[in-house]
């Protein structure tokens, strides 16, 4: 239940589709997180590269963690350019109980920011500039740079 789209996400359609998919499955709590491109630093938008093979296995491992708590995860992300006030990211947790859902959406979104293989660029003055300062090295990075 990982969905990738070219360009900005159709958020209302995604939230509706996910809600309807799980409506009969007896989950008491549904918590989506929607990320939308903000106007700051004069950007025209953001752009994303995704490495899909590792994103898929990364997502599967989180789906297993959710399952162990009786919950499920869904996630959608944009590929390529996403302009101001468009949305690039939606994820959601469904759980029988609210505490699990409230804690898991937080844990998942933070892990996503720190480790999902997605690269962000600012679109500014016709250029695509890697958002280096807002990026996080994946845990275990640097082994190829060790002094020998």
């Amino acid at each position, binding site marked *: 239940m990982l969905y990738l789209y070219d360009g900005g996400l159709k958020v209302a359609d995604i939230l509706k589709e996910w809600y309807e998919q799980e409506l009969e499955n007896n989950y008491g709590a549904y918590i989506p997180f929607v990320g939308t491109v903000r106007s700051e630093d004069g950007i025209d938008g953001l752009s994303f590269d995704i490495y899909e093979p590792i994103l898929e296995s990364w997502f599967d491992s989180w789906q297993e963690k959710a399952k162990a708590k009786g919950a499920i995860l869904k996630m959608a992300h944009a590929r390529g350019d996403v302009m101001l006030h468009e949305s690039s990211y939606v994820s959601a947790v469904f759980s029988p109980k609210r505490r699990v859902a409230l804690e898991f959406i937080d844990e998942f979104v933070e892990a996503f*920011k720190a480790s999902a*293989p997605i690269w962000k660029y600012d679109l500014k003055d016709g250029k695509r500039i890697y958002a280096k300062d807002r990026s996080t090295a994946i845990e275990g990075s640097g082994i190829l740079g060790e002094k020998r």
Partner: protein
Amino acid sequence: MVRVEFLGPIQKEPLELDITNLSQLADVLQQDETMTEWLQNSAVAINDTLTSSLNVELKDGDKVSLLPPVCGG
């Protein structure tokens, strides 16, 4: 041959190298000064599985990927 791919913002074409472990790859890439910072902040995957150790053997047909710092969402 082992294929080495540079993901996301690393502006470097893929390499095809005749190497048998990650230490040899480190030797090769450390010759390239444009790679110094990326080597220090990138994660490494072999056949799309992340590894945190250099003590890994590589065989013909393996794929190694370098993943620089990420920022989804």
